[in-house]
């Protein structure tokens, strides 16, 4: 670093370095700007233009401040795994990672073997501090992952298919043999959600306080857990499925069906928002990238596909070979795939949405992996399998810096109570679930075209007739080139030019007449006059 005197001020950082820093800052600013600046060129209203210009400047400033804060003020840095020489990252074993990292981190590598009660499914709270596990044979437990302690375990003595935390660690829902139940942290049963039926998969939408479930008959239900109201109950009509995932970006629930279709749902409409044939065979797993733009689906035909949700193309952006019984994206965008007793981690390191092999982990032969799930704000992957549950280290998977007001792994009970109140105040109505959540608060564009006036239609017809009139008919052979014939021909051309316009006009008039008739039919005539009412045409 060179120090030079420059016009009275001391310039500590050389120009090259400065440029580099500003380039990096620009990249960060872009993230915080949340889209491009509004184009104020075409605005005629000067007052509005001035106001918007001020607003844009403010946004720019705040994005800049946020970018600077992110660069300099954040306390932790993300994890990484780099290979040296001929090493390959996917050949690095968990044991060798454990030797390199500190004791605190190596404690999060463990295997819990409970062969009698498996296969296990699991769920994390949004802060990553607590984990709920559910064994197929009725074993439910909540664990504190910070100090590795068991908070409570209960045995419900019936099939447990899925577990899901509600808005904090105090409550969790378990999908059991006949109905889903809500338990509190002490294992007390609070509610039995009988309306849901035999649920296969549960998901909680934490911004909306909605518990979404899909049952044995492919029936999707949304229940508001604050007031207990059933918000939506829709028959998918696409058969039994246990592949369900919530897109965290917009709250849309996606279902993967046995016909290879993926359908996306919102609680306020009975028809899916979107349906798309993704695979040729049944869909076995799916996951969403936290930024909401990328969806991964796995089919039984041994293919994993990555889809860009913004473009809605027919073609996936990437197709990878392999089975997956479960998929999950981490906060930083790593994709975990679990099949049989093998977990593979894929990563996008080129920045061009091209996922390649990053890490792998093989469990003891015979273990069947049922669920993989990244632990938020940690470099840890939780695995639920037929013999219990395990946890491995995946460097670079978690977001290194948490926000106290969003999800705090070190939350005290007082903070938790405060947060509960605030999140209830900010509870979103179910109508805010839409494919593009940035649409909210923007101007709705005029969908329907303006109706043309009568004059405009006439002018159009006139123009068409004029265009025909100018055409000079071809010279015909003798006998067919008489002036009368030529005049007749010309007249015919004019008529044929007019015809489509006249037909259109007639059609519109008929429509109007039909509407009028409908209205007049509805008006009840007095009995004395009813005999004069026009009868309907005999059928």
């Amino acid at each position, binding site marked *: 670093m060179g120090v030079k005197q420059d016009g009275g001020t001391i310039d500590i950082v050389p120009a090259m370095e400065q440029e580099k820093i500003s380039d990096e800052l620009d990249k960060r600013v872009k993230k915080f700007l*949340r889209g491009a600046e509004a184009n104020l060129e075409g605005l005629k209203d000067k007052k509005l233009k001035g106001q918007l210009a001020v607003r844009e400047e403010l946004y720019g400033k705040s994005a800049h401040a946020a970018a600077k804060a992110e660069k300099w003020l954040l306390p932790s840095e993300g994890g990484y795994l780099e290979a040296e020489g001929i090493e390959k990252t996917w050949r690095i074993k968990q044991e060798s990672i454990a030797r390199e990292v500190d004791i605190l981190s190596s404690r999060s590598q463990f295997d819990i073997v409970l062969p009698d009660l498996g296969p296990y499914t699991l769920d994390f709270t949004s802060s990553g501090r607590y984990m709920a596990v559910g064994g197929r044979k009725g074993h439910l437990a909540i664990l504190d992952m910070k100090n590795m302690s068991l908070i409570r375990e209960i045995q419900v003595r019936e099939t447990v298919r899925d577990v899901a935390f509600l808005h904090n660690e105090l409550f969790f829902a378990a999908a059991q043999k006949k109905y889903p139940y809500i338990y509190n942290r002490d294992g007390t049963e609070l509610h039995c959600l009988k309306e849901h039926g035999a649920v296969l998969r549960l998901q909680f939408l934490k911004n909306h306080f909605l518990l979404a479930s899909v049952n044995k008959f492919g029936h999707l239900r949304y229940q508001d857990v604050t007031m207990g109201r059933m918000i939506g109950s829709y028959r998918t009509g696409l058969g039994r499925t246990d592949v369900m995932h919530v897109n965290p970006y917009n709250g849309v629930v996606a279902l993967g069906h046995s016909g290879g279709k993926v359908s996306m749902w919102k609680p306020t409409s009975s028809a899916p928002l979107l349906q798309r044939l993704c695979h040729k065979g049944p869909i076995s797993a799916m996951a969403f990238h*936290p930024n909401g733009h990328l969806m991964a689906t796995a089919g039984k035909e041994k293919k994993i596909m990555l889809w860009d949700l913004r473009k809605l193309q027919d073609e996936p952006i990437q197709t990878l070979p392999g089975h997956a019984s479960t998929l999950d994206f981490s906060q930083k965008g790593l994709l975990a795939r679990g099949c049989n007793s093998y977990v593979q981690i894929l990563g996008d390191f080129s920045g061009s949405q091209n996922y390649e092999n990053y890490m792998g982990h093989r469990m003891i032969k015979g273990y069947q992996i049922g669920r993989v799930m990244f632990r938020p704000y940690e470099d840890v992957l939780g695995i639920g399998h037929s013999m219990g549950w395990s946890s491995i280290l995946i460097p670079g998977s978690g977001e290194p810096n948490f926000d*106290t007001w969003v999800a705090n792994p070190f939350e005290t009970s007082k903070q938790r109570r405060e947060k509960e109140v605030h999140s209830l105040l900010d509870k979103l109505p179910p109508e805010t679930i839409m494919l593009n959540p940035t649409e909210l608060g923007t101007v709705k564009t005029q969908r329907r075209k303006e109706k043309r006036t009568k004059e405009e239609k006439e002018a159009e017809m006139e123009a068409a007739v004029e265009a025909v009139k100018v055409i000079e008919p071809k010279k015909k052979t003798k006998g067919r080139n008489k002036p009368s014939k030529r005049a007749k021909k010309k007249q015919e051309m004019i008529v044929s030019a007019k015809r489509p316009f006249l037909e259109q006009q007639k059609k519109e008039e008929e429509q109007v007449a039909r509407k009028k008739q409908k209205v007049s039919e509805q008006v009840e005539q007095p009995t004395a006059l009813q005999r004069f009412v026009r009868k309907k045409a005999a059928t």
Partner: protein
Amino acid sequence: MKVKVISRSADEFTKERSQDLQRVFRNFDPSIRTQEKAVEYVRAQNAAKLDKIFARPFVGAMEGHIDSISCMAKNPNHLIGIFSGSMDGEIRLWDLASRRTVCRFPGHKGAVQGLTVSTDGRVLVSCGTDSTVRLWSVPVSNLLEEDASSDKSAQPRETYVWKNAFRSVDHQWNSDRFATGGAGVDIWNHNRSAPEQSYQWGTDTVVSVRFNPGEPDILATSASDRSIALYDLRMGKPTSKFIMRTRTNSICWNPMEPINFTAANEDSNCYSFDCRKFGEATCVHMDHVSAVMDIDYSPTGREFVTGSYDRTIMIFQYNAGHKREIYHTKRMQRVFCVKYSCDGSYVISGSDDTNLRLWKSKASEQLGVLLPREQKKHEYHEAVKNRYKHLPEIKRIVRHRHLPKPIYKAGKQIREQNESQRKKQEKRKAHSAPGSIVEEPLRKRKIIKVE
């Protein structure tokens, strides 16, 4: 192999001692806050609703007068003192903090029609229908606090008798001159028993007189011949004048943009004018349903308050066509005078029912000292409300006011009348030769003649 994983030791991220504050870490990354726009929208909705819940603008009434209150004056040197004059000739000085009379000024034989205080706050000038101008010494402020329990009465310092009844008075900035309006405009000096100068333009009574706060020699008046006129004391003669369709009851200059003034008109509208350009109003402030009796600007110049014959008080933005706020109570009768307090946070109204009423200028504002956290929360609420104010749901909540039935009905009727007139004009225009009917905007329509 290089490897690093996230590792947080608890003592780095939690407080060390129990007395410490909890540590707060921020990460502004948009991807960990999903659906932030929807969340903001819900917060804006909640903020708008909270505003409605906390909207309690009425602070208190000050009773004591035995006839309706005709005029008020605020003391530019003393925040909590306000003078009021009533129709029975009594003048009182009120302490706004304790809402009690501090001092009485008896002497006028008829109604007190105008009150004003000199810039230094020492002299109170009153005038009335008994054709007298009286000068009073304002009691010193420390005396106010000593014995607020027993109200005193004061004797006039000077009494000047003149030829005609007076309708209004205003004091010039930083001098000992004041102007009265009656049969004409008279300029007085504290020390002389007869006016220094007199102006006459037409034969009608001058209803209100206001000195320009920026240029102390300029004076605006309104008269009952429906005119608004400007006078320049240096010229010795009136400068310009225009006539409107209806009478202007009161005038107030914008203290921050002293080229602009707003006139409270008999036709239930207020009109803002630029004094350099009299041909048209810069803005028409509608929403009252009966004659606007008095108007006063906030010291910030961004808002003004109007009192009307329809028993309501409204607060307008200086450039908005419709009200921001409307205040009314069951017991408040015709409002004859309103004042914005010198700190811009209160509004005082004097009405026919002999009471002065004290209102908050922002209905849901929290009174008292705010903690920084509270302050920040209020600012945040204000910002999100402003951001989503165009969305129909929020607009509806923010705009909704419960009105007394007669006012609601009268307003509806006025709107219907305007609408039908507009339609009629449109039809007339459509069925006459193009260009033969020139429609004048409302801002120009009400001005008949400019002299």
